[in-house]
């Protein structure tokens, strides 16, 4: 094959040539080194999927019946974290606003942490492993404690330890919702009139609506959950910063990301295995359902 005569190359300095040579020596050929690894991993994965599929059958329950709601009804497992959130806050917050903001925040990570620190290697920065562990432990233990609190487990523990009932004057601390239901909020709080000027339904020819706001409800369903979800991560960040554990942006990102993953996993596990009939906090298996 005739090789086209090429333009003579620019003279390259000795140092540059040395660096280029060293880089070349660090490199392998994709065929065979990478293609081989990929091939083996594809074969191993195919075989394990095949074995799994021979051994474990997919679930098929009775034919769909729109008039028969199973108890509990559950979303697919990777959305059970959101369904878990649904039990503790306003549905708009749990079902739409939180996941939307979480995805935007996830996408924004590289634009916030845009240094080259710790690039291209596992846990390359100092303290990165410690930050991962701290984030993961705080995230999972924290979300678990909040779930137990909202299920009034602290009341049960108190009662079984002391043998006496939970003091009546602390009834509003039984769960998050109790703050709304166990305090005698005055009517001026539970029915804050916004009048008919907020929703101008009259403009499109509909009857006017007098809008009232239930402040304790807003507090319990929106204000407390939102401040918890924003406040606790910020608090963790500040504590880690003051403790000189998290210094750079990469450090804070490791802390937050690890915490996020831990919360995601914890909520998913609780939603999958510990929410039974009526979404009560009891052990649950989808396979038990599948057998009837």
């Amino acid at each position, binding site marked *: 094959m005739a090789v086209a005569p090429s333009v003579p190359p620019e003279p390259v300095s000795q140092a540059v040539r040395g660096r280029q040579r060293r880089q070349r020596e660090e490199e392998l*050929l*994709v065929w065979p080194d990478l293609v081989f*690894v*990929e091939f083996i991993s594809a074969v191993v994965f195919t075989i394990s999927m095949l074995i799994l*599929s021979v051994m474990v059958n997919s679930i098929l329950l009775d034919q769909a019946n*729109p008039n028969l709601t199973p108890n509990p009804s559950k979303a697919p497992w990777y959305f059970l974290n959101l369904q878990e959130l649904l039990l503790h806050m306003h549905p708009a917050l749990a079902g739409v606003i939180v996941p939307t903001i979480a995805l935007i925040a996830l996408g924004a990570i*590289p634009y916030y942490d845009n240094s080259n620190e710790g690039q291209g290697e596992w846990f390359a920065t100092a303290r990165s492993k410690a930050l991962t562990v701290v984030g993961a432990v705080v995230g999972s233990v924290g979300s678990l404690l909040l779930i137990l609190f909202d299920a009034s487990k602290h009341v049960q523990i108190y009662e079984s330890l002391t043998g006496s009932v939970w003091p009546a004057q602390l009834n509003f601390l039984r769960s998050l919702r109790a703050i709304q239901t166990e305090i005698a909020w005055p009517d001026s709080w539970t029915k804050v009139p916004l009048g008919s000027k907020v929703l101008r339904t009259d403009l499109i020819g509909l009857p006017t609506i007098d809008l009232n706001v239930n402040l304790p409800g807003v507090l319990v369903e929106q204000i407390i959950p939102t401040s918890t979800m924003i406040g606790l991560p910020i608090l963790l960040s500040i504590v880690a910063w003051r403790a000189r554990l998290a210094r750079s942006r990469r450090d804070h990102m490791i802390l937050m990301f690890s915490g996020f993953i831990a919360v995601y996993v914890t909520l998913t596990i609780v939603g999958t295995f510990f929410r039974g009939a009526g979404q009560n906090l009891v052990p649950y298996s989808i396979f038990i359902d599948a057998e009837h």
Partner: protein
Amino acid sequence: MATTEQPERRALGDRLYDVAFHNRVWRSVFRSGYPNTPRNQMLVVATNVFLHLHPTRIHRTHVKITHTFCLGGLSFFLFLGLTISGVLLMFYYVPSIDRAYTDILALENNVRFGLLMRNMHRWMAHGMVLTVLMHMMRVFYTGAYKPPREFNWVVGVVLLVLTLLLSFTGYLLPWDQLAIWAITVGTNMVGSAPILGEPNRFVLVGGFQVGQSALIRFYTLHVIGLPLLAAVFMTVHFWRIRRDGGLARPL
């Protein structure tokens, strides 16, 4: 074999290869010779459209399994496997609320390897959600999202969402109690959004409750809409990996 380089000492394999494939048909398909010299090995990667997803050379550390755990590659591999098993499932499945459930029953009981096919498709779908999530964690902890790879991380987040949506739309298709109620719970979450929630839920489900319109919408999204979108974003994802100079390395 004038045009391809030959190794200095030809082994038995090289000779056999010559005997078997030194003909015009084979050489019209594969232009480079047997990959037995560095030059031929690079040519094989550079001249094959599929292998050309890769560069011809790659840094040592990126070949180590413990750097990527093959997770991105496995996600892609699962996507391909799901496409194949999905096409096979489509032969037997009609997206109508009168037939869907019985089609699945018939697939499991009357079709040879039908149950195995359904199991493969289902476990690979769960597996893909897992590998994509773990791939994201691997990219994060190796700090591989940093400039110039910011945009590819964003493409990744889109791929994560598409993967979840693919799995979610597939969940409805068996039309059993698990399917319909999971989708009811999920789409009700969409409906709870302020202002735009209910109209969005209505469009997604095609009515007030999950029924025939929902089934055909989810089916169409599941078998063509979302896979096409995912394929487009994967193309961008892989292209950008090459454009950004291969996998991230310490500076």
